[in-house]
C-alpha cells in the first residue's frame, strides 16, 4: 500500500502538538521530508507521534536516546531536519 495524500494530511495534523518545541521541529521535518516518505517511515512516525509531548521533546532534542530501533531512524531524521 502506497502512502496516500490522505495519509500525509493525517500525519500533518498529528504533528500538531501541545508543546511549541515539537510543533516547530515536526513542521521543519514535514517541509523537508513529507513528499518522499515511504510506508515504513510513515508507520514509524505514526508510532512515534503516539508518545506524549514531553517524552517526544526529550527524544527530539537529544536529551534522551531512542530505545526503540524501529523509531530511531525517524527520530534522527527529525533531529537533523
Amino acid at each position, binding site marked *: 500500500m502506497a502512502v496516500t*495524500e*490522505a495519509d500525509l*494530511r*493525517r500525519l*500533518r*495534523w498529528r504533528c*500538531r*502538538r*501541545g*508543546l*511549541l*518545541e515539537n*510543533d*516547530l*521541529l515536526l*513542521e521543519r521535518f514535514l517541509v523537508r521530508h513529507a513528499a518522499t516518505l515511504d510506508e515504513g517511515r510513515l508507520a514509524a512516525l505514526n508510532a512515534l507521534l503516539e508518545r*506524549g*509531548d*514531553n517524552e517526544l521533546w526529550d527524544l527530539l*532534542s*537529544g*536529551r534522551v536516546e531512542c530505545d526503540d530501533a524501529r523509531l530511531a531512524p525517524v527520530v534522527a531524521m527529525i533531529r537533523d531536519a
Partner: protein
Amino acid sequence: MALAVRQFDAVVVGAGGAGLRAALQLAEAGLRVAVLTKVFPTRSHTVAAQGGIGAALGNMGTDSWQWHMYDTVKGSDWLGDQDAIEYMCREAPKVVIELEHFGMPFDRNEDGTVYQRPFGGHMQNMGAGPAVQRSCCAADRTGHAMLHTLYQRNVRARTQFFVEWMALDLVRDASGQVLGVTALEMETGEVVLFHARATLFATGGAGRIFAASTNAFINTGDGLGMAARAGIPLEDMEFYQFHPTGVYGAGVLITEGVRGEGGYLLNKNGERFMERYAPSAKDLASRDVVSRAMATEIKEGRGAGPNADYLLLKLDHLGPEVIDKRLPGIREIAKKFANVDPVREPIPVVPTVHYQMGGIPTNYHGEVVVPGRQGPNTVVPGFYAAGECACASVHGANRLGTNSLTDLVVFGKAAGDSVIRFLRENPGHKPLPADAAERSAARLARLDGQRGGESVHVLGNEIRRTMQAHCGVFRFPDLLAEGVQMIRALSDRVARSEIQDKSKVFNTARVEALELDNLIEVARATMVSAHARKESRGAHDRADCHDRPGFPNGRDDQNWLKHTLWYKEGDRLEYKPVNLKPLTAETIPPKARAY
C-alpha cells in the same frame, strides 16, 4: 444543509485542564457528556505548564487564602473581580487536594504532604512579604501530570471523547439560549450538529495571533471566534502577558534562569542597555520592565539583525561548564531554534506573548454573562466557559504565575456544577431552530466556492506580523491607530480566504482556514480594545501613559477601572464595572502596584 444531529446532556469543547475537569464533574453526576477536541486530550496545551498550580495549602509555613487573594488582586492591577478572586483562592486548596486524591503525582515533603515552591508575586502578610511557597508541582511536568490524571478519571467515568473534531459555531435560538455546537469530523469531513442542553467552552488561549508566541500551533482562539460570531462580546482582550526572552522567529522560551546565572542583553551596538533602564537590577528587573526596555530599543532602531528587530542574549562569558550544568536544555534550544551555540554566540530574543488574560465573560460560577435585561452580567442560558478562553475575571490586567492552572481546575469544576444545576431545572432538549447550522454551512460553502482569494498561510502571517508590530508588549498610540486600520483591512481579506485542496478526508487546509476565521476575530478584538484603553495597566503598557502623580505607572482608575467588552457586530466596544466587592472578605482598595 441537512446534517446529522447527535444529542447529549452536555457538550464540552476542549480537553485541556479546564475541559477535562468540567467533563469529569458532569460524567460523575451521571450525565451524558461529549467532549470535542482538535487533538488527543493529553496533547492539549496544558501539557506545557511547568511551574505548578497555586494554592494556599500552607504545607511549607503559614499561608492563607486571604494572602493568595491579596496577591492575585494586586497582580491583576485591580482589574480582577474580587468576588471571583475570593472564590478561586478559597477553593484552590480543596481542588488541589482533590487532584491528589485522583492520583496526581505531586512532589512531596518528608511528612507526606504536597511540596510547594516559591513563585514570583506570591507573598506573605497581604503583600508585605517575604515570599511564600505556594506552588504545588509534579517535578517540572505539572500540566502533563494534571492532564493524564484527569483524562484517566474521565475514561473511568465514561465521558465520551470526540478526538480530532473541530467545533465550528455556536448554536443559539431566537431567545439567545445556547443549544449546542456544529462540529467537523476531520477524518471524514462530515459536519455534525451536537444538540446539547448545556454547552461549555474550554478551548484555551489565542496566543497564536502574535508572531512571537510561546503557545503551540493549536492555540488559535476558536472558542473566542465562535462566541464572537454568535453575538457574545469578548472581555478585556487588550491584556496579554509577555515573556521577555522568547527565541526570535520561533517563540520558544528561554528561562529567566539564564539571566539569573549572569547572562545579559545587548543591543546592536553591543551596549548592555538594561543599565540605562534599571541601573541597579539591570537584566534582573521584573518581566515588564525588561520587556518594555527591549521594545523601546527596537522602536528606536537599536535592534540587532538585518531588520533591526531583535536583541541579543549573551551568555558565552559564563563558560560551557556553567551553561551545561546550571542551564540544562538551553544549548539544545538555542541550537535547534536560533541556530547558534550560546557557548560562542549570543541568542537572538524578543518579548514573546505567553498568556491571554481576557476572554469569554463569565461569573465565578462559570456561567457566560453579557449585558442584558438583568444588567451588565446577565446569564446566557445554556452557555458556560472555563480556563484560558474564559474571563471570570481573576487575572484582570496581569496573571500571577501558577494561577492559570488554579483557574482551570476551580472554574472547570464550578462550571460543571452550574451545568448540573441548570439541567436539573431545565429538563429535556429545547427544539433546534430551522437555521441552526446555517452559519457553519455558509462558511463552508463560501470556502469551497471561493475563487481569486488569498492563501490562508499568507493571511495568517500578516495578522501575526501586524499584531506583533502594532500591539506588542509596549504600545505606541500612532502604531495602535494604524494597527486598527490594518487589522480591519485584513479582516475583509480573510473573508475571501481561499484553499486549493477541496478534498474531504482529513483536509487540514480547510481546518486551518476555519481556524483563521477565529484568529482574525481575536486579533481585531485585541487591537481595537488596546487602541481604546488610554491608560497603562498591568500588561497593557502604553508609551503615552506613564507614571505621574495620581496615575501610578500610568494607571487611570478614575476613567479606566472597568472591563472592556468588544462586539464583533459593528466592531464596537462597551464597558462594564469591575466588581471590587469580594464574597465575604473586605474590599482590597486600589493602590500603586510596586514589588
